[in-house]
């Protein structure tokens, strides 16, 4: 007997979670299956909607205005700007640890690479770092954490013309951590105020860190740190640091593994649970039955093939990074349903010569109809009841546009909602 539901979502990243939550909110019986850790763990945790046009104009102050000027086959144009707004409202309702929803205007946030980037929503923990806020700031890095070199980031931000004074200092994280300690180790130590040994004396890590930052502060009203300020209780860690230091504290969104990405993922799974959705993780969908409609998909579980059946399916398996789109020397393909993925025949036409050129590979993905059903090479839906969301969709370059999260949320919301309506 197959495990049954109204809607089955394949993929547990931002798009999959958004579609499962939106379908559940429509009242559907939803199940989400996910294989590996999602790419949220590699992402900054910022929710970009649109920062640059495909021609590279920007940073855009208003992402929604920019949507009208996008090409017609862009996922935003397919779902429409009103759907994008509705989807962002849903995000704001279910994720109460984010800011930016008070305005249509993009925010600019400092990056660990020393630039600023436009984004539409940002975690509470990043909010004191806004680059359009003109208060001076101090960046603090740790000697053994080469990903965030605070003096370098500060100098780069100055070169970027930020409207405030910024300094960077490097300190040693208290205690005898290994030089290559994981970010989760820092996060846990700070969250638990866990014991570290400083000059032979056992101290709380957070208290000891405050003592090291305090003498570095001049009159900056805000301090930025790498994104290791806590795991489950980031707000608590930040509040404690702010109380002790007497200034605002923020995290600079990070390189993988990204604590802000992990926290967002955790929050979305909670929200799915609250909305009544089911989920299970750790095993891949490997095959399916069905011709015109998808009847059943099979999950590979310790050598057994477990059937899952649903009335409607959402494919949210990711793009090239998440392996929802794969390739070999001859072709680019979608590995579960073998949906058609348009691409140039010659693989030397898949890329541009310049590292940040216009890369066709960045736009690889399925080509959907207005209901987000993947189309075959002839332009007909591959299956009547399969919709796609997130970076498995083609036709946009999220990296250049800074549109990845927004497209995932908007198309996830749209696909989930239609799937739920069709199933009822």
């Amino acid at each position: 007997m197959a495990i049954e539901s109204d809607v089955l979502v394949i993929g547990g990243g931002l798009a999959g979670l958004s579609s499962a939550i939106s379908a559940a909110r429509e009242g559907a019986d939803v199940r989400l299956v996910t294989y590996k850790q999602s790419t949220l763990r590699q992402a900054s945790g910022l929710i970009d909607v649109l920062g640059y046009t495909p021609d590279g104009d920007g940073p855009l102050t208003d992402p929604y205005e920019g949507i009208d000027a996008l090409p017609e086959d862009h996922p935003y144009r397919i779902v429409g700007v009103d759907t994008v707004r509705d989807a962002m409202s849903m995000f704001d309702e279910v994720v109460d640890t984010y800011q930016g929803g008070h305005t249509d205007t993009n925010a600019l946030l400092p990056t660990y690479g020393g630039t600023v980037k436009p984004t539409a929503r940002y975690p509470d923990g990043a909010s004191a770092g806004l680059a359009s806020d003109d208060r001076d700031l101090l960046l603090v890095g740790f000697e053994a954490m080469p990903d965030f070199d605070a003096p370098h980031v500060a100098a780069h931000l100055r070169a970027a013309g930020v409207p405030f004074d910024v300094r960077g200092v490097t300190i040693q994280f208290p205690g005898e951590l290994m030089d290559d300690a994981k970010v989760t180790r820092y996060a846990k130590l700070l969250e638990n105020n866990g014991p570290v040994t400083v000059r032979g004396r056992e101290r709380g890590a957070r208290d000891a860190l405050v003592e090291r930052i305090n003498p570095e502060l001049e009159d900056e009203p805000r301090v930025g740190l790498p994104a290791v300020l806590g795991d489950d209780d980031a707000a608590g860690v930040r509040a404690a640091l702010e109380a002790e230091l007497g200034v605002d504290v923020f995290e600079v969104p990070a390189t993988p593994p990204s604590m802000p990405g992990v926290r967002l993922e955790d929050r979305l799974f909670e929200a799915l649970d609250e909305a009544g959705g089911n989920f299970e993780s750790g095993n891949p969908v490997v095959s399916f039955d069905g011709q015109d409609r998808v009847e059943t998909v099979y999950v590979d579980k310790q050598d057994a093939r477990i059937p899952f059946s649903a009335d409607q399916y959402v494919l949210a398996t990711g793009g090239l990074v998440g392996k929802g789109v794969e390739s070999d020397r001859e072709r680019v393909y979608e590995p579960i349903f073998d949906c058609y993925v348009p691409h140039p025949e010659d693989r030397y036409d898949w890329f541009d010569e310049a590292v940040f050129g216009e890369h066709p590979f960045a736009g690889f993905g399925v080509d959907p109809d207005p209901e987000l059903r993947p189309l075959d090479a002839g332009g007909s839906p591959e299956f009547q009841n399969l919709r796609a969301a997130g970076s498995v969709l083609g036709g946009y370059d999220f990296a250049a546009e800074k549109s990845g999260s927004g497209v995932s949320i908007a198309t996830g919301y749209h696909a989930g909602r239609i799937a739920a309506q069709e199933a009822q």
Partner: protein
Amino acid sequence: MASTPHVLVIGGGSTGIGIARDLAMRDLDVTLVEQGNLTHGTTGRMHGLLHSGGRYAVSDQASAKECIQENRVLRDIASHCVEMTGGMFVKRPEDTEEYFEKKLEGCRECGIPAEVISGEEARKREPHLAKDIDKAIAVPDGAIDPFRLVVANAASAEQHGARIETHSPVTDLLIEDGEVVGVEVKHKSGPGIRVHGTEGGTEEIRADYVVNASGAWAGQIGEMADVDIEVRPSKGVMTIMNIRQVDTVINRCRPKGDADIVVPHETTAILGTTDEEVEDPEDYPEEQWEVDLMIDTLKELVPMLEEARTIRSFWGVRPLYEPPDVGSEDPTDITRDFFLLDHEERDDLPGMTSIVGGKFTTYRLMAEKISDHVCEQFDIERECRTADEPLPGSEDFSVLRDYMEEFGLRSPIGRRSVERLGSRADEVLKTNEPNPVICECEGVTRAEVQDAIKQSGSDLNAVRIRTRASMGNCQGGMCVHRLASELHDTSVDGDTFDEAIAREAWDELLQERWKGQRHALWGEQLSQAMLNYALHATTQNRDNDPADGEPVDFAAFDAGGDHVGDASGTDVAADGGETDGY
């Protein structure tokens, strides 16, 4: 003539640097100029094979004998650059028995240790070899790191007083009264270490003798003095795999042909190669069919290559030469031997000799012969000592110490650092500062990166070839910004690398890493490339860096919902409370 002759060497590849070291050790004054980095040309673009001589044992026995001799010398003087992997010539059913016998006989005639092993034994040694390999000849092939070898030669030459100028292309030969008396170079960033953004300038360097060791570029140097040097550059592709599918050099046992060798190299395996004559050593097509040929042919020896992940491909240009009267049609027929062209004898132009052709494995022997020739010009009789004196890093080299405890490094990283640094490990790794890993794929720590910066200035590509940072699976996706941060604020010889310098070096390395990855963009590596692109463009926004572009109107953007920018900064407690939302 001055009492100590001053010799100017053009070319910072293995041959030029070998000559510089040799002459400096014979107490001559030496200046070496190189247009790019050390190893910029062919040396930095080879498969890393330390020949046993087996590959030439049938076709060119003189070369084969030199190879086995130099193979032994390099194991001695450059132990930290060499990994004695061993090699095999494997025979497939369709390869002839006759050639197999010839190969074996040839090896024996040339004094190359050669042992016939069964197919079963070959697969025992290399489990991924094809099931239908009949048998093999085991020979002492090895892997050698050309970057490390050249850098060690350069360090030795400098210790003996040589001056080495990289990023200084020769713009003209100085000729007076029909004699070459020096060169004019253009320093891209001033003499000494490279510093991005530093104004260069030209310099006339006078010399008592000029050695043109510019390899595939020798003809272009010759033109400056109106002499013809008919170098016939021939390109070859090398495709790098993400892991070592084999730990032994695997050669196909058949007469010369494309795609017949796999060389294990550090964490990777390198597939080679093709042989196609090109017009210009700087500008030639890098073609898809060449990459496909490597995989499709070499999978006959190692079937798993079909599905394996390649991380990039690169091309090298062999500086082949043959006397004009030979006229080989096919570049594969051109000898791999080297030629010393004394322009006084040949073109009535005293003061300069060119060296063309030759092989990496025998670079030291070539350098010895050229150095003998240079010394003859000055009636100097001094013994060559390069075969006996170990290179820096290889003296008294015994790896087997517990570097993990000593330097606080995790075991595999400590081991790999010490393998790269050899006897310099103490000097480089002993630091009281935290020493985190900068490049995870290759296990390169901050201390090694800083050591390389001290040697090579703000040039991250030069840091890369010294340390292997950014040369692993992720091709710099995770570490290029870290390397830029290591540059930032570092001072070398009185130059402090500011943010603008670090940014320029960063961009240059990103583009360099991209260049080779383009030839590996399918499967896992395309996925990796997309991840790198996402990290660099989405998360770092490096593609729209405001520091490089138009000023941003910061005031037009969201200044926060709860606390509108409080420039006075006095109300900090209230701000602190508000941002938390509780």
